[in-house]
């Protein structure tokens, strides 16, 4: 009798442990989206010219009808409905990791196509592009211009659109120095002292840039 009780308890213990393991395995949450690049690898990616599409390259891609390139519009659906690149797919930023979008990107990958992300500005497409790259999609490229630039290139290939990229330095530092130094040299200036030192000489001649109130 006692022996029987003991074996029964053992059976219950075995079943219990197995149950706990099964429940544990079933409910284990494995995140669908994981980083596949380390931060250092992601950082190195930013200097890779092969991961971006310049407006010049985009013009050629737009003419190309082989279907190798899929344009992805990351603007919201309202802006998309108002106008978009022909055959572009609309995946707004916030829906990027939704199941539907993810399967769309996987399909593109399987088909051996390349996805080119564009937004209202380069800045808008930059985040989604960077996230896709970090989570392991290698065939995703960033358009380094705005939607307007892409649209102009699309509608009229003879028109030369502004080739200017958003990260182009626009400040004419030489001109700035010429203007700022006379004053900076004469005044007790706080920070850009090193700038002032470089060209103190023209102080005498150039008093014209005076401040005024």
């Amino acid at each position, binding site marked *: 009798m006692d022996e029987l009780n003991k074996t029964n308890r053992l059976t219950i213990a075995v079943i219990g442990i197995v149950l706990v393991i099964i429940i544990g395995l079933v409910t284990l949450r494995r995140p669908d989206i994981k*980083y596949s690049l380390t931060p250092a690898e992601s950082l190195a990616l930013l200097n890779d010219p092969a991961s971006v599409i310049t407006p010049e390259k985009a013009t050629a891609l737009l003419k190309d009808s082989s279907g190798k390139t899929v344009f992805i519009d990351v603007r919201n659906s309202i802006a998309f409905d108002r106008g978009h690149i022909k055959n572009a797919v609309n995946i707004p930023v916030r829906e990027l990791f939704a199941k539907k979008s993810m399967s769309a990107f996987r399909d593109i990958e399987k088909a051996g196509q390349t996805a080119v992300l564009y937004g209202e500005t380069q800045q808008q497409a930059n*985040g989604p592009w960077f996230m896709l790259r970090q989570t392991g999609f290698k065939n995703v490229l960033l358009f380094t211009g705005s939607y307007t630039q892409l649209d102009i290139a699309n509608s009229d290939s003879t028109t030369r659109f502004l080739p200017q990229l958003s990260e182009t*330095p626009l400040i004419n530092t030489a001109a700035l120095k010429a203007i700022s130094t006379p004053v900076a040299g004469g005044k007790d200036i706080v920070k850009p002292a090193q700038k002032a030192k470089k060209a103190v000489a023209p102080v005498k001649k150039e*008093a*014209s840039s005076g401040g005024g109130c």
Partner: protein
Amino acid sequence: MNKRYLLLAGIIIALGVGILFMPAKDTSKQTQPELLLAAIDDPSRFLSTDDITDRLVKKDPALMVIDVRSESQFKAFSIPGAINIPADSLLSASAQEILNQKEMDKVFYSNADVTSDQAWIICKRMGMQRIYVMQGGVNKWFNTIVKAEKPAEAAPIEAMELYQFRIAACQYFFGSPLMASTPKVAADKKKVSVVKKKSEAASGGGC
């Protein structure tokens, strides 16, 4: 020996071996991709050039302006008071030490706001707090603060106040409203009437 004991022991040993071969758990406090995407979609990380200028003028001790452009670009022109951490060296030990100061508001800027936003994404992924991006970058800063445009006569009073603030900020940084178009003309005119042949004049002062 009861067979069930053996079974039980077998399960426990199998579990132990299983734990041994489990992949090392990611102990770093990385932001999960979904959360990071939500943060990217949220524009609150962008600070305007005027806000940052205001805080620079007020010498906000909790503000750190970080230039993520190359060293040569930083030397050519940078926002007064900014420090230079080129985007390439963002993960270096010295840069991490600076960026991990919890009590500071760290504002990234580049020429525009793409490189700085990329730097922001990397830092956000690594779990950093209180990081921001200057909207428009140094190009916009230059165009709004240094080359401040005078609003039209009929412009609302706020626009005029903003313009005066920009001129004053520029004067604070560089000693003169460098390129501000309209006041310069005014100053020139004044010079014509006041200058007494000396041309030395040293009229550079302003008030």
